[in-house]
């Protein structure tokens, strides 16, 4: 079963400087009980993608083509606002970088967790019991007595765990996690990833995990897509991409990660050039102006080259293996 | 500027303000009468080509008095507002950036001054100094300064710990430099809008005080004084009340529309909410 199936999604924004293609022909699927990572640097369209799925695009944004099929039925790209609102928080839950986005500072944690369960029809006591169980799952010590406390009485790491507990309270089919560990310290980040992994297995939901941190994606996700300038340039299982990336952008991105270096190097690898202006996309391959493998063929849009299994890359030269780049 | 004209209310506001300002500046050209010249033979005249708005109980040309009254109204409104702004900004910056104890004392003073009712304040000042143009300016400043200073203080406090201010401090920048270059330019915008919206309030204060005889001394023309003359002689001619009231209403509306349009242009979020 596929929980989320995004097909040829394109999103445009109307800006003062003209139309901006924020997403172009984005396709990927999130299978049931799997974690899919979305990796990319700033400006790659990660936020636009999440907002499109959640039906929260800004007023000047518009889905120009494509479908977002949720649980094999509804097309979220065409769903009315009321039905969309009914899905959010119940079937599709979200966790963001800043947990205070999900927590109301003036209400106790217990009250907020009760409020999420308004559709459950449970008594107040049963709701609180479920809240306590959920807080225990996210490893908040002594949850019974902490229900009465307010968000500011918890540490940053605990706040994020409470936000996760609230997101998973209604056992959603899909959890969208947008850089949930970026603001946390390393020791907490690792703990939060472990927690998300356990919870996902426990509850049996799918996770769409957005991050710029390659290490986090590698640890948490089964499959991943790599985005650049609003396009999916490569997708496959996490193992395929980390061991056998074929798109030059993915290869360079992996090479740039200092976590791959086990010793000091005289010069850190970088990606020359800058992101193209999305109002005037370069002809052909979107990465071509920064790519050292680019030739005249790259001036025409490359096909999605299948590399076996689910692995594919949008590149004319997808045959060069990763080892030759990082060596 | 083009943005203001695109909004119908903004265009109307700008037109009204332009008319009032221009007629005040060119009062001497637009009329051949002197504002205080009494003409007993022409009392309570209705509007005519000779007297566009008629005459009052002393036979003075009302159109002329309205034009010259506009001068007074605008001079006081703009002068007093500008003075309030300058004093408010300076006090606000000092309170926000200075030591904590000074801030506490200044806040106490701001709140104390602000808690006086305007009318009582006006009466007290007039009793002390006698009715005059300066009394009006002083009242306006006492009413406005605490509010402006408080807003500037709060914004200064917020920016005081901002990274770009810390960076300037770490370079060894002086307090005046930090306040003038790194703080004030970032907080002055919203205040200017607020101040422009206060101009009509000041027009009303001046008119009100002059109406009560606490402001500009007769025979100097003032819209409030004209209004007062009108009320005293309402049985003989209703034109005087109209001549005194209409410019107050139009000026107030003009500045309010203009201020609101400016605010919306600078901060579109406020507009969507309303």
């Amino acid at each position, binding site marked *: 079963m596929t929980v989320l199936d995004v097909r040829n999604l394109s999103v445009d924004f109307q800006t003062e400087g003209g139309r901006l293609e924020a997403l172009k022909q984005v396709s990927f699927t999130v299978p049931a009980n799997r974690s899919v990572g979305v990796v990319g*640097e700033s400006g790659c369209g990660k936020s636009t993608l999440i907002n499109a799925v959640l039906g929260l695009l800004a007023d000047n944004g518009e889905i120009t083509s494509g479908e977002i099929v949720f649980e094999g039925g509804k097309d979220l790209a065409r769903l009315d606002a009321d039905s969309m609102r009914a899905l959010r928080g119940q079937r599709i839950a979200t966790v963001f970088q800043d947990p205070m986005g999900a927590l109301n500072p003036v209400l106790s944690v217990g009250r907020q967790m009760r409020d999420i369960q308004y559709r459950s029809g449970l008594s107040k006591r049963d709701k609180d019991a479920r809240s306590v169980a959920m807080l225990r799952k996210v490893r908040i010590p002594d949850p019974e007595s902490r229900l009465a406390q307010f968000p500011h009485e918890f*540490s940053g790491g605990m706040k994020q765990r409470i936000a996760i507990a609230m997101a998973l309270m209604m056992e959603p089919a899909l959890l969208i996690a947008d850089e949930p560990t970026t603001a946390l*310290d390393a020791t907490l980040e690792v703990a939060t990833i472990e927690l998300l992994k356990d919870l996902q297995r426990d509850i049996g939901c799918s996770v769409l995990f957005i991050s*710029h941190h390659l290490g986090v994606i590698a*640890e948490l996700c089964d499959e991943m897509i790599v985005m650049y300038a609003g396009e999916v340039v490569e997708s496959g299982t996490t193992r395929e991409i980390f061991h056998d990336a074929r798109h030059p952008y993915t290869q360079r991105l992996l090479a740039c990660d200092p976590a791959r270096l086990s*010793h000091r190097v005289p010069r850190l690898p970088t990606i020359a050039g800058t992101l193209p202006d999305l109002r005037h996309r370069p002809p052909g391959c979107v990465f071509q102006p920064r790519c050292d493998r680019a030739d005249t063929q790259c001036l025409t849009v490359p096909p999605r080259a299948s590399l076996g299994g689910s692995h594919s890359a949008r590149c004319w030269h997808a045959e060069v293996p990763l080892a030759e780049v990082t060596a | 500027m083009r943005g203001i004209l695109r909004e119908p209310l903004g265009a109307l506001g700008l037109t009204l303000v332009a008319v009032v300002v221009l007629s005040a500046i060119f009062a001497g050209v637009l009329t051949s009468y002197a504002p205080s010249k009494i003409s007993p033979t022409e009392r309570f005249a209705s509007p005519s080509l000779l007297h566009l708005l008629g005459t009052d109980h002393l036979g003075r040309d009302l159109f002329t008095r309205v034009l010259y009254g506009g001068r007074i109204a605008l001079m006081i409104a703009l002068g007093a507002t500008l003075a309030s702004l300058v004093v408010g900004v300076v006090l606000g910056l000092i309170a926000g950036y200075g030591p904590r104890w000074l801030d506490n004392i200044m806040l106490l003073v701001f709140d104390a001054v602000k808690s006086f009712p305007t009318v009582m304040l006006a009466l007290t000042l007039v009793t002390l100094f006698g009715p005059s143009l300066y009394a009006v300016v002083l009242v306006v400043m006492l009413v406005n300064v605490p509010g402006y200073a408080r807003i500037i203080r709060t914004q200064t406090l917020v920016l005081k710990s901002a990274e770009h201010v810390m*960076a300037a*401090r770490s370079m*060894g920048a002086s307090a005046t430099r930090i306040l003038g270059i790194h703080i004030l330019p970032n907080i002055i915008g919203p205040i200017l809008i607020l101040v422009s919206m206060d101009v009509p309030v000041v027009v009303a204060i001046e008119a009100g005080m002059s109406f009560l005889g606490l402001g500009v001394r007769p025979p100097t023309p003032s819209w409030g004084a004209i209004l007062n003359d009108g009320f005293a002689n309402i049985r003989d001619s209703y034109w005087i009340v109209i001549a005194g009231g209409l410019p107050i209403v139009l000026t107030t509306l003009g500045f309010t529309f203009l201020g609101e349009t400016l605010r919306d242009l600078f901060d579109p979020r406020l507009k969507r909410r309303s």
Partner: protein
Amino acid sequence: MSAGSLLEVNDLRVSFRVGGLSARLAGRATEIEAVSGVSFSLDRGSTFALVGESGSGKTTLARALNGLQPAVAGSIRFDGQELRGLSNAGMKPVRQRMPMMFQDPVGSLSPRLSVRSLLTEPFAIHGLSNRDLDTEVRRLLALVGLPRDFAERYPHQLSGGQARRVGVARAIALDPVLVIADEPTAGLDVSVQGEVLNLLNDLRDRMGLSMLIITHNLHVVRQIADRMAVMYLGRFVEQGETEAIFTKPRHPYTAALLSANPEPDPDKVHQRISLPADVPSLLARPKGCEFHTRCPQAQPRCSTEAPLPVVVGDSRLTCHFPLNT
């Protein structure tokens, strides 16, 4: 003081008052020591990294060195001069030679100033406006690899990496001897991170700069710092040569930090040292060794007796039962 050392910090303490009058009347603790007896020295031309998690006091320490935060005890000797207790006026010439870079690449630039004004500000502050400022701006932009026409841009028109370069240019404007950089790569994409670190390394080599880098990113430390110190609750728990600490961490906290780095390899088998519980509050420091509440190696002695720093060669360690010995 050894001949080569540029900055010598001894037993430095910085504290904050928290809570108001009510807290004081209720008898609650009202002082927290954010930096608690820190000692280290930085050699000329070398780079020293301060590593710690949020709340460890590393930023406060940096601000104390620059005089933005008064130190309550200890000494800071910079190029032979004692800095603690200097007035703002006394600090001014020091700040010219010891500029500081702040975390937020865009936020640390004044939003209404053009890049040109930002870059000429150090000259204006230190009374050097008589220099040919146009030439200086061009020189600085070239040094950090930005095109000339960037002088006319404003901070909001810059990407994170470009803004960071402007920040670097401003820091090196007056030929400093020591640059203090608080999280120089925070908020930057990985591909841009490398560029900034390469730039900092280049400038250090070319200008003979010394650098003090504050970061929570251990990968950054390894690529840029000669020596490093690990901070926990305002104290240094371990300091020494970067490579030595990376290969053989001796403090259990250092070891846990190093193991907590998610690595880009899905098949990697992790031997994680997971730290239980949260960081204790500075208002209620644990007794004995302050790390014992979270330490996987803690023994009864650790909760009663505070370990003293042990100096071995040029490394320093505060632990009763060090690892890798």
